[in-house]
């Protein structure tokens, strides 16, 4: 570990300039903060946290739509626990559940499907939020529901895919990204080849990283070495799990159930082709079509800078709400509520040490 840190410092010196490395994975964010590894980096190497937390990039009007569904007497909303406290425009699912809405926490989409089989009198809507990592399990539940004719099961789909977002971040140019730490779990499914366009079009090096502290440090040293050598390639540090082509069976399942669509990322805006929508064949299991869900206008606190933080333009303390109006117990922006949100991590593990 010491030699890795030393190598990073030497490479940093060799580069002789400031570099911005961005990770785009909520688990990387958490590991970086929880292990305190950010403090081991030289001042010239900045580790930015990008839009890697799926909860954080989910638009407020999605939460609003889920809340509206949870109040319908014929509907039971099933969700991963981390969406419960995310603020929508007016309220959150946990507050609404306390007020009588039907919201059930499940630990997998298959559990939600099971719930639908067990409660034939209710329509179970699973909140499909996540990147390529969770998309196959949701696709599988939809596929099974269709095959077994479980008509009272559908998904309110807000799935997103990572490459489009990375592309948008690079084009943004408000923050100069010198290298990407690519998400390990996503890459297990997609394969590492999906990042090649970033190296080829923008000359930005990419390293797919694992989730231990030493994985991330190793990946940072690989990125710095590429920068020092003037290379821009996709390297796989997390080679114990990630291959070039990824998990083909999972990709087929995603392909079978979903098709690309434009998606709105909270705080960033619309990104063409960066979302997954349920295909026409499975329309009966798409909550939007099966239940006639309508999305209203998102209303968010204008002072909230989650969008800037997700793009690496601002750090959490730059936001005037951080730690004042907005805390993990009373989050205003999504980055403060999700367990993998940058503001939550910053607040929990680092923000007040200096104070």
């Amino acid at each position, binding site marked *: *570990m010491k030699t890795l840190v030393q190598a990073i410092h030497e490479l940093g010196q060799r580069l002789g300039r400031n570099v911005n490395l961005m990770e785009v994975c909520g688990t990387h964010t958490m590991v970086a903060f929880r*292990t*305190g*590894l950010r403090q081991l980096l030289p001042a010239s190497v900045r580790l930015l946290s990008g839009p890697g937390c799926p909860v954080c990039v989910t638009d407020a009007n999605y939460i609003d739509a889920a809340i509206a569904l949870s109040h319908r007497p014929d509907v039971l909303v099933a969700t991963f*626990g981390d969406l419960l406290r995310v603020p929508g425009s007016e309220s959150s699912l946990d507050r609404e559940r306390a007020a009588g809405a039907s919201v059930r926490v499940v630990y997998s989409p298959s559990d939600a499907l099971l719930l639908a089989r067990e409660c034939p009198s209710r329509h179970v809507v699973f909140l499909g939020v996540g990147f390529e990592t969770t998309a196959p399990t949701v696709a599988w539940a939809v596929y099974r529901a269709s095959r077994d004719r479980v008509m009272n099961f559908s998904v309110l789909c807000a799935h997103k895919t990572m490459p489009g977002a990375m592309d948008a971040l690079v084009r943004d140019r408000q923050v100069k990204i010198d290298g990407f730490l690519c998400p390990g779990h996503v890459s297990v499914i997609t394969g590492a080849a999906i990042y090649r366009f970033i190296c080829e079009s923008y000359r930005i090096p990419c390293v797919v990283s694992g989730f231990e502290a030493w994985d991330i440090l190793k990946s940072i040293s690989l990125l710095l070495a590429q920068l020092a050598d003037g290379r821009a390639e996709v390297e796989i540090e997390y080679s114990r799990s990630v291959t070039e082509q990824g998990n083909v069976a999972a990709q087929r399942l995603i392909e079978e159930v979903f098709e690309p669509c434009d998606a709105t990322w909270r705080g960033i805006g619309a990104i063409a082709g960066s979302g997954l929508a349920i295909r026409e064949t499975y329309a009966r299991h798409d909550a939007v079509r099966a239940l006639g869900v309508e999305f209203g206008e998102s209303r968010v606190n204008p002072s909230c800078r989650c969008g800037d933080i997700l793009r690496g333009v601002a750090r959490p303390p730059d936001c005037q709400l951080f730690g004042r109006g907005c805390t993990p*117990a009373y989050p205003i922006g999504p980055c403060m509520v999700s367990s993998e949100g940058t503001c939550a991590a910053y607040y929990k*593990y680092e923000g007040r*040490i200096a104070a």
Partner: protein
Amino acid sequence: MKYERIVMAHGGGGSLTHELIKELFAREFDNPVLRTSDDSAVLAMNRQGYAFTTDSYVVKPYFFPGGDIGRLAVCGTVNDLAMQGAQPQWLSLGFILEEGLPLADLEKIVASIRQAVAEVGVQIVTGDTKVVERGRCEGLYINMAGIGRVVTKNWIGGANARPGDVVIVNGPLGEHGVAVMSCREGIEFQTSVVSDCAPLWPLVKEILETGVEIHTMRDPTRGGLAAAVCDIARASGVGIRLNESAIPIDPAVRGACDLLGLDPLAIANEGKLILFCRALDGERVLAAMNRHPLGREARIIGEVQEKPKSLALLRTTIGGERIIDMPTGEDLPRIC
């Protein structure tokens, strides 16, 4: 945006629970004894100190690996007394039973209570039974109050940790929370972890018999070690620094936490205590603990400093440092 209704996190033992207590209960009932906010209230009668505590038990399911709701009730109540340096004497036992509860289950739970009570040498001296309609509670809930006689000369309390103290824990953390979660509907997973549910008085007795002045003791239940050290740092106005590599955590607990995305430091324990005493007394306390089965794996996990005031920090295994934050009280299963 304040909450207008109670949400599950209000019962999670984290910041929302603390806020509810502070802004509603403590404000309405404020008095010097309540203000100490320790695990039990210490009262003086005829120049003898008595510790008094109450707790309700709603764990789901009521049988779990390593224990059941009955044993949990005795341990939880007895431990709250022991943390104040009090020898548990008397307990009350209040049942809320659901219509349809199998009598065989109730008998098993009662037998388990009898067994736990015998381990501590405490008596159940009063009780109550209520039955509610089917669907109004899940099987049964228990409320238990306890009274113990304070046997220490000095005041043990959350506000008494001092710079120069060491922090000692009696064994590996997170087992109760993980054991209960492993059999919870919806997330059943195979694990070798069983609840650490145990009455701590016998261990505390050994510790007190060393004659060492103990400053603070806490049983890190809901909210785990994280909530306990945050609370103590705040109450004592000191900085607490823990060493991650010294904190004992079973690999199976760590694995389950990784799987569920939880921090093992924020997971509940029911047979653990953390203790603060002067550094030069540390080895003596540790030796006494190591002689007892519940303290065989006891170790020093950190120390108290003057600064940063009211903050708990963790020196990580890779040499970084981070804050230990009060858990918010996430949407976790009911574990006690």
